[in-house]
């Protein structure tokens, strides 16, 4: 009996690969398994190879496996491209229709997926047949899939449900009869705990919703579009609004306008859009307007690899604006973190009155995975320093000078008055300004205002800037961020099996860079390996940039658009000892 299993479905883009993978994954998640699914696709609409790899396990892994146990192939291409990854004696289920051939190290089952589906009513049900076949191979009760099918199709009437159930059953039986129900592939049964199944983008959208975001101007771009597409469906329930703007410049300036107006507002984009937002992000910094920007990183530079994994916008996000502004940059690693990070981002933006960039990477944004249910009570909405109408009525004379929006305070943080508030009239400008927001070039004022703004985050290390797990005084500490959390965790486990003690330091906050905390958390390690999905070692450079020191630091970089596999990190690190 298997404790974990790796199943992959592949075929032409637009051929049902995604929905087959999704149904498989959702069904197993419902049974209480931990599921992690990773999709490979191209920047085109139809055609081109695409696949969806689903890992199923009794404990949680946050990444794909290095190998595949069961491959479901909708075309010969899939076998040619993906069978190499199937483990020896692994199983390939392929549509009989295209006379599949497979390499010797695997066991091929040519199943008449399409014919059975046609017999059940329609060729599109071949995905159901293939799920049935998968259930048989994996020793899963057939209900695993029939229940999901029932739920999904019951609105279309009993007949459709029956057809689909039948298709699943026929696939199941075909494999049984063909002798494909190998007990060595049987999955141990799970405990049936109910958890969520979603991608990072879903969690970001839910996090924004829970955090009180009600205005989202954005421009579509892969892999960020889901966030706006999800909220545009949900916002009507809470009176929020998504605007599909003419471009990212409008999106960012509109976000600023809405934030200035008192809403919690944010936008979401990816690299090219982030580049276009730079000027406006500077405006948010200068005017101390809380604005949240999600940047779902993808393969760069320029249009680059728009559907591939990368972590190469760190510098752009942290250093991209001209001049000098306070800025916060977060980088969650899991859907859970995505959800709570949004609450954190809005609170930080409101507290420090500055732009907050939430980075993800394509793997985190798009991989669907088992996620612990979110607790709304944990999302506290704290709007920071606000001059309310009551306060203004009390404290301020009826006809006095303007409200000092940029009052110089100890902390550098000054109360905001939302437009529309009586007694709160003031000016805001991207030009250097005085306490009441009027353009002012005087040398002393300038110094005070720069100090005010930059002081807000000086020396600050945010709570939860990193998470460290693993051994004390380890031979190696692996430093990573974002979606690489899973591969690093697993590599650490294997290193320990090899007798190498290992710790995993996962960075959650890039700005303010947690210099002390990071320094301390690496101090007891013999060696440090920085793992990142980019070509120049941006995180590695950030350590030096901010003065985090360690005598033995190496970089392990991957920038070919694919995600790190645990085995790669494991081998790299092991090779050092």
């Amino acid at each position: 009996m298997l404790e974990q299993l790796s199943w992959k479905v592949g075929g032409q883009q637009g051929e049902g690969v995604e929905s087959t993978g999704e149904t498989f994954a959702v069904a197993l998640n419902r049974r209480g398994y931990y599921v992690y699914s990773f999709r490979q696709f191209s920047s085109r609409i139809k055609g081109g190879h695409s696949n969806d790899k689903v890992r199923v396990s009794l404990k949680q892994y946050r990444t794909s496996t290095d190998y595949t146990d069961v491959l479901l192939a909708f075309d010969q291409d899939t076998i040619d491209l993906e069978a190499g990854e199937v483990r020896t004696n692994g199983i390939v289920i392929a549509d009989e229709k295209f006379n599949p051939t497979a390499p010797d190290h695997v066991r091929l089952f040519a199943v008449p997926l399409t014919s059975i589906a046609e017999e059940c009513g329609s060729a599109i049900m071949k995905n159901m047949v293939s799920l049935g076949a998968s259930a048989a191979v994996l020793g899963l009760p057939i209900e695993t899939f029939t229940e999901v099918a029932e739920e999904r199709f019951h609105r279309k009437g009993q007949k459709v449900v029956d057809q689909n159930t039948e298709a699943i059953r026929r696939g199941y039986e075909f494999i049984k009869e063909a002798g494909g129900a190998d007990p060595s592939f049987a999955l141990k049964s799970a405990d049936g705990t109910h958890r969520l199944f979603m991608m990072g983008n879903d969690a970001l959208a839910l996090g924004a919703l829970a955090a009180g975001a009600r205005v989202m101007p954005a421009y579509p771009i892969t892999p960020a579009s889901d966030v706006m597409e999800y909220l545009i469906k949900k916002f009507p329930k809470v009176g929020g609004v998504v605007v599909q703007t003419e471009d990212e410049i409008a999106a960012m300036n509109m976000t600023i306008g809405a934030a200035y107006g008192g809403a919690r507002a944010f936008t979401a984009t990816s690299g090219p859009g982030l580049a276009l937002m730079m000027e406006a992000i500077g405006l948010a910094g200068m005017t101390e307007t809380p604005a949240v920007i999600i940047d779902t990183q993808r393969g760069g530079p320029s249009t680059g690899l728009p559907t591939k994994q990368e972590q190469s916008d760190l510098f752009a996000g942290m250093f991209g604006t001209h001049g000098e502004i306070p800025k916060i940059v977060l980088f969650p690693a899991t859907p859970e973190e995505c959800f709570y990070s949004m609450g954190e981002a809005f609170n930080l933006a409101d507290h420090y009155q500055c732009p907050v960039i939430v980075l993800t990477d394509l793997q985190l944004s798009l991989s669907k995975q088992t996620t612990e249910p979110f607790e709304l009570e944990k999302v506290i909405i704290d709007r920071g320093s606000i001059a309310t109408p009551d306060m203004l009525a009390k404290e301020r004379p009826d006809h006095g000078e303007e409200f000092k929006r940029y009052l110089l305070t100890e902390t550098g943080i000054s109360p905001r008055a939302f437009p529309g508030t009586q007694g709160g009239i003031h000016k805001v400008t991207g030009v250097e300004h005085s306490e009441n927001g009027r353009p002012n070039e005087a040398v002393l004022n300038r110094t005070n205002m720069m100090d005010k703004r930059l002081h807000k985050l000086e020396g600050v290390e945010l709570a939860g800037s990193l998470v460290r797990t693993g051994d004390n005084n380890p031979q190696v500490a692996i430093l990573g961020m974002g979606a690489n959390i899973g591969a690093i965790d697993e590599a650490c486990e294997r290193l320990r099996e090899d007798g190498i003690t290992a710790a995993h330091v996962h960075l959650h906050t890039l700005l303010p860079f947690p210099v002390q905390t990071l320094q301390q958390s690496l101090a007891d390690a013999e060696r440090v390996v920085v793992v990142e999905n980019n070509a120049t070692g941006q995180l590695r450079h950030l350590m030096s940039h901010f003065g985090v020191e360690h005598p033995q630091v190496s970089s392990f970089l991957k920038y070919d658009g694919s995600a790190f596999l645990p085995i790669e990190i494991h081998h790299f690190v092991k090779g050092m000892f």
Partner: protein
Amino acid sequence: MTTTVTVKDFRNDVRPNWCPGCGDFSVQASIQRALASLGKQPHEVAVISGIGCSGRISGYINTYGFHGVHGRALPAAQGLKLANRDLTVIAAGGDGDGFGIGLNHFMHSVRRNMDITYIVMDNHIYGLTKGQHSPTSAHGFTAKTAPAGNIENAVVPAQIALGADIGFLAQGFSSDVNQLVSLIEQAIQYKGFALVNVFSPCVTYNKVNTYDFFRENIVNLDKVDGYDPTSRMEAMKTVIETQGLCTGLIYRDDHRQDYEDQIPGYQTTPIAQQDLQLNPEIFAETLKEFA
């Protein structure tokens, strides 16, 4: 608390840093008069401006004021309106700001049709950067960046606004403050996106499009008998015939819904005043989709 407002309520103690004689003074005064005569309270109004001499206007009127980056007044103004639909939102800026770098936002603001008034101080020049030609500078016009004469054709704001299918279009002239006040009043009252393009001479850098030039060349539609501002074809024809040099209410369509009224589930209480706490039931229901 003041209940009746006067022009004075819209004045602050800042001395504009415009050159003496700059057309923008009149625009400022007209906005102040229009707001007063509409009985708006200063705190209920926000002026959002871009960068340019004209862009300084948001600092000179006693309302909320936001002076953003060059060319982006309209997106910021729209964001503000979405956050607080009760506000009277006026966007303002120069011809370069609005029809040069910011033209894309203008075109899309028109079709989005939020309830915003956009006032452009069109001096046919880049003032603040000291005299380069602007998108509304005529072909042949000489300027710092066109010493041998401009070889690009001019944008005619009224024409592109009609081309973009605007719902409210008016033009004014800094020398005719009474007309301008009335146009701004109408624009603010119009429920949808309204453009008031104002011929506002730059006395320092534009020696061609002077007060006299406009006085001599402008056709005042208020004085054209039988001009029908509800006919889009007539408006277009007039604008083409006058090469855009006409003032008054050029076009108005009262049969449109603004953006805000069409947003599904958008509430009458401004977002900025709502309780942001998510209803736990809605949340629970939402999570179900991911179970």
